[in-house]
């Protein structure tokens, strides 16, 4: 049976992709950011996940205002890096896992999550930057990827509670897949940042760290944070953190923290990164 072995959360600031692509990732500015990912890169080499379910948001790249899906799952064979206006990032194509993705999509719909199915799309920095952060610059990405795109741009975006519940449903879907697969789930975006208006540049170290503490906790209180709190405390784009709750919801009640990293600033944004593994009895018993 397939199983979710770990959850990873990470910011996906486009400038991090630029730093990797231009070899600036160890300079004075980016060095402290990337140093916080060294542990994870080594750990991923040991873990060798077969598939990553990668929760991210599109930034007006694959989706414009023509269609705005709240939750969309990529069931395609492969995805190219999107041209976001300055040419596509020079990264390998992202290889999908259509069998698993369709299984998850079907299971989620039966579980009353009305998913949008995507067979063809390009993937932007929201998806490729986390891959670079975790895997560096390989010839080919070392695992398959099931993209899960969430609308966090046009309001209302899904509630934290709904995101958590989707994570729980994803776990049930994965655990009912017969193939023996090591699956990780990643939540990306955040942490505090605001990219618009006179309040742009807002960062909130204290709140971000409280959020990381809540992810580590043996309870699900974090799912009940209302949108207005994210907006007031972490800036208009801090709302991306609801995507981390899909990851956290998929890990069960109890988790162990394997790694945690926080850094201010990267461009307009506070960088957050955490690696968790499921630790509740059900997960332990299944091993």
């Amino acid at each position: 049976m397939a199983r979710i072995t770990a959850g990873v959360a990470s910011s996906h600031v486009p400038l991090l992709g630029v730093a990797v692509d231009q070899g600036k990732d160890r300079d004075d500015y980016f060095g402290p950011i990337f140093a916080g990912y060294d542990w994870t890169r080594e750990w991923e080499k040991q873990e060798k996940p077969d598939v990553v379910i990668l929760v991210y948001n599109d930034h007006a790249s694959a989706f414009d205002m023509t269609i705005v899906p709240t939750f969309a799952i990529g069931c395609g064979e492969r995805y190219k890096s999107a041209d976001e206006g300055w040419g596509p990032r020079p990264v390998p194509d992202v290889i999908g896992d259509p069998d698993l993705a369709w299984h998850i999509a079907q299971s989620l719909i039966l579980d009353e999550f009305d998913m949008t199915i995507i067979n063809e799309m390009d993937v932007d920095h929201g998806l490729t930057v986390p891959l670079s952060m975790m895997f560096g610059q390989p010839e080919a990405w070392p695992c398959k990827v099931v993209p899960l795109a969430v609308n966090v741009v046009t309001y209302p975006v899904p509630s934290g509670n709904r995101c958590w519940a989707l994570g729980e449903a994803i776990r049930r879907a994965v655990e009912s897949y017969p193939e023996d697969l090591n699956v990780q789930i990643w939540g990306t975006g955040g942490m505090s940042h605001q990219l618009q208006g006179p309040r742009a540049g807002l960062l909130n170290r204290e709140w971000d760290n409280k959020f990381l503490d809540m992810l580590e906790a043996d309870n699900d209180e974090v799912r009940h944070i209302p949108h207005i709190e994210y907006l007031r405390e972490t800036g208009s784009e801090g709302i991306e953190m609801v995507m981390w709750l899909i990851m956290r919801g998929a890990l069960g009640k109890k988790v162990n923290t394997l790694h945690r990293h926080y850094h201010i600033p990267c461009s307009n944004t506070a960088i957050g990164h955490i690696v968790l593994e499921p630790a509740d009895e059900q997960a332990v018993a299944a091993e």
Partner: protein
Amino acid sequence: MSKKPTQNIHEYLAEFEDIPGTRVYTAARARKGYHINQFAMSLMKAENRERFKADEKAYLDEWDISDEGKEALLARDYNRLLDLGGNVYFLAKLFSTDGLSFAEAVSTMTEYTFPEYREMMLNGGRSPEGNRSIKGGY
């Protein structure tokens, strides 16, 4: 029997207007700014960028955008564009066409010059203190 909504949409939306210096991209803004945002998306294609750069006004005249919208686009007045329903991820296609980084474009919406803005970010960013609520002043 119908279920009561988890949250009242009117109360939900009203709270957004209480955040200082912020335009949350609501459905109302998305409708208002639809053509501004779709125009910006068109700049994802190299040939459209070339045509826009060659004659910005003529390119904008092909779109169903108000005169005020066109003026704000030509002036790169991003705060006004937000008021007109523009969204920063769409407007990013315009400032990328201009060769501006995200941070530089974002800084034009604040009270700071770009070097001052960068300095603020290096020093920990804008504090949430006093920036959370207009009515509450906290």
